[in-house]
């Protein structure tokens, strides 16, 4: 019963905090650029403003264009509900493991790519084809990270991985470092951050995600923006859950444990967001045809993480 309650809290928490996290990243980036930057609550205002506006849909668009924003948002929200944030005692945790989480995000990506192609403009096709290139390399890298984590902890469920790590059975492993590096590269690619994609670009030929949502306006655009924010929160929560789960409440810890877990979760999110802002400011976006090198490196790191486990005789 308490698991249902924590699940409801998490469902509300992830979608309520996601815009704030994005706002915080933008604020830190602005301060690093020497600007004052928008307040942290600005994304909430942006979403509210967009939702009030009329949605303009092209003549050539089909029902896929109109339903895609909600499907993308719902799939990102659903995935975010399944990753433990402040406690592992959430009711829906057994419904999806790491492989199913990757596939759930692939579902969202399938729909957004189709929505980009629906209107029949060159920019939508541009965004969709680049997005599928990124996905074709980032997904295998993520699956190799799941493989190495499953070899270390004996399970592919995030909640069980946390329980394994918190019970002290894992020492310092080179493989986990390699897997973390691969996961960070995948997270950057999947969320469309620099160096893969610039979320604040206005130049169409440099766009990937923005090109797919170029034709959207009003509430549809608000849903797409919100989905991107929830996805960023999801990936940060996943990194924190899999690699630094200390502070998370386990089944059996009471309300105090959950509160401590929420505090730990907030701290981890802020640290990761600050790190992301510093990273994005420090380097430049790379050319599209260098994505294969970057993400191929992530795939190779994931493969090495698995193979190094044999060398270190942990398996």
């Amino acid at each position, binding site marked *: 019963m308490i698991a249902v309650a924590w699940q409801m809290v998490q469902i509300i928490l992830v979608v309520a905090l996601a815009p704030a996290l994005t706002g915080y990243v933008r604020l830190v980036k602005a301060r690093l650029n020497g600007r004052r930057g928008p307040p942290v609550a600005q994304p909430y205002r942006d979403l509210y403003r967009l939702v009030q506006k009329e949605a303009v849909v092209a*003549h050539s668009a089909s029902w896929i264009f109109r339903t895609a924003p909600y499907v993308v948002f719902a799939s990102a929200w659903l995935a975010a509900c399944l990753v433990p944030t402040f406690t592992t005692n959430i009711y829906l945790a057994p419904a999806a493991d790491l492989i199913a989480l990757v596939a759930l995000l692939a579902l969202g990506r399938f729909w957004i790519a*189709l929505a980009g192609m629906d209107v029949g403009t060159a920019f939508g096709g541009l965004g969709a084809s680049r997005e599928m*290139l990124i996905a074709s390399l980032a997904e295998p890298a993520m699956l190799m990270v799941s493989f190495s984590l499953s070899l270390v902890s004996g399970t592919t469920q995030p909640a069980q991985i946390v329980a394994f790590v918190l019970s002290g059975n894992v020492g310092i492993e080179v493989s986990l470092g390699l897997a973390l590096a691969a996961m960070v590269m995948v997270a950057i690619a999947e969320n469309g951050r620099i160096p893969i994609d610039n979320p604040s670009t206005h130049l169409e030929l440099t766009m990937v995600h923005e090109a797919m949502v170029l034709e959207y306006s009003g509430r549809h655009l608000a849903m797409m923006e919100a989905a991107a924010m929830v996805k960023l929160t999801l990936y940060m929560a996943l990194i924190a859950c899999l690699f630094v789960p200390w502070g998370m409440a386990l089944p059996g810890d009471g309300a105090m444990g959950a509160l401590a877990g929420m505090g730990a979760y907030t701290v981890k999110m802020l640290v990761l967001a600050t790190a992301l802002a510093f990273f994005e400011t420090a380097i430049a976006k790379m050319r599209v045809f260098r994505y294969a090198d970057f993400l191929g490196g992530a795939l190779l790191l994931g493969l090495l993480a698995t193979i190094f486990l044999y060398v270190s005789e942990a398996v």
Partner: protein
Amino acid sequence: MLIAIALLALPVLCVIAIVFGRHGWNHGLVHGGCAVAAAVLVVAGLRHLGGIGDAPSVVLPFGLPWMHAHFRVDNLSALFLLIVNVPAACASVFGISYVGHLPERKRVTPFYPLFLFGMNAVLVADDAFMFLVAWEFMSLSSWLLVLAAHERPENRRAGMVYLTMAVFGTFCLLPCFGLLAGVGGDYTFAAMRAARLGPLAESLVVVLLLLGAGSKAGLVPLHVWLPLAHPAAPSHVSALMSGVMTKVALYAIVRVLFDLHGDVGWQWGAVMMMVGGITAVMGVLYAVMQDDLKTLLAYSTVENVGVAVIGLGLAIAFKDDGESQLAALALVAGLYHMLNHSIFKSLLFLGVGAVTHATGERSLGALGGLLKRMRWTGGTFLVGAAAISALPPLNGFVSEWLVLQALFKGPVVPHWAMKFGVPVVAALLALAAALAAACFVRAFGIAFLGRPRSASAAAAGEVGLGMRGAMAVLAVLCVILGAVPVTVTDHLSAVVTPLTGVQFAVSSDLGWPFLSPVSNTRGSYSGTVLVLIGLILFGFAIALVHRLGTTAMRAADPWDCGTPEDNPATQYSGQSFAQPLRRSFGATIFRARETVTMPDPSDPAPARHKVTMIDPVWSGLYAPLIRLVDWIADGVNRMQYLTVRLYLLLMFCTLVFLLLVVAVRQQQ
């Protein structure tokens, strides 16, 4: 009994088709009859799996004089009867209205029942002779169907390549069954099951089987006939060749390796896994570069066959190591993937058939905007594309998930080749799955979304009720097989129990909606829960947004960054969409090179964009082989023009050689 009636009805339908060939209603009648026969076979298969059923084996007094024809239905045959006949029934219903419009219909209708007969007879054969006779029936009738539209030169070439590969396949299967029968020469499967093989024979059987049945299934590098032959046949026949005939080849592999041979070493499992992984990646890379929808689907079949073979190889490795539960898991995963692929590949091919029926076009460069003009076809094609891209909650994801869960347990096998090979195969499988999603976003997006790229695409209308019904049934099956994975795996466990020797049980600690094959803490998935919660969140999002904001919507021209273009040629084409993938993956594997020649500013000549690629398998393996065969043939051809003296010398030498052979044999 049911099976016998249905099987005998099919050749009768062939005769009817020939006798009444002149009448127009003949085509609909024969295809309808095939649909009924296939439905009867589905019922028979379900009855056998459910436990009800009459005598499962029968010996008929025809065939070889010292060995009559043996037929038997066991759980594996019953499962494959379902895998074969569900798409066959839907394709036959599709064919009722589809074939009537084909110009080559008189060459299609007589051979179609024979094709179904051949495939089903392979599944129920219980001795090697009937097996191979039925196998040849299947190959030859599909060859005749490939040649139905023989006026086109590419179809003639397809027929030539297909016949060569089919003959090669049988040429490998004959000694394979000969080795299994052993010195005693008893070709019944029961005798083969009981026989023990020597170490050399054990390995040879596996190699010959993989060459023979693997070429029919489409393993790289023996896949070259698939993308030529499958597009050449009419669409409902391509659906069966791609979705079903490849599964019959995989049935042969499962039957021999797990049932008749029974003692395959883990090394062969590792080889099969590696071959399957390479097949999967190569197949989907080829598919992404194709513009012809049917060739694209044929290459995608190669990819899915690779995934199934990964599952089978893993099962062999686990079984040899004594991990029976994991072997059962891997085998269930492989069989589940075969079932799923037969359903969604047939659905996709029937969709392409509907598109060609409505527009006359098959190439992505001439399609577009079909979703608004063919709502049902587009909707069912979308379900098929999502299923083959392994997206939850559909069936394709469940089988990929099971294969991955089995792979993640792979390092349990204590051999170093497995420990290092399994992560590589897992990476290949993951890469293939991600590229498949890219391939089908491209196929569906270019063909059905956007604006029409040709007049015939703009004028397309929805197809008839029969065709839509066939596709809808397959689409519903995709959804159902994804929604009740625990029920399906329970039934598949009944199939694998005699093959692995252990009862495979999905862990049920979490309850029925949760599929947790190894243990409930190891990894679990529930499609029904995800759909339920997903729909709640979806509805909630819509309600919240409509509550907080406005529901106003206005139709207008596309924004297109303020520079809208009327010409639909400015939107992305199939080749443009594939360009990033071609540059990243194709540069090394296919030696893909792009050259752009821009004329001078004052020159009115058009700019040219040229893409060159090579087919590495064809130019690396087959072209040298063909050159070698030609060279040998040229050399041997010189024997046509020898003088009388040289002919006499040849006869003399042959005589001397034979006398020597006789002398040596008499010495022994």
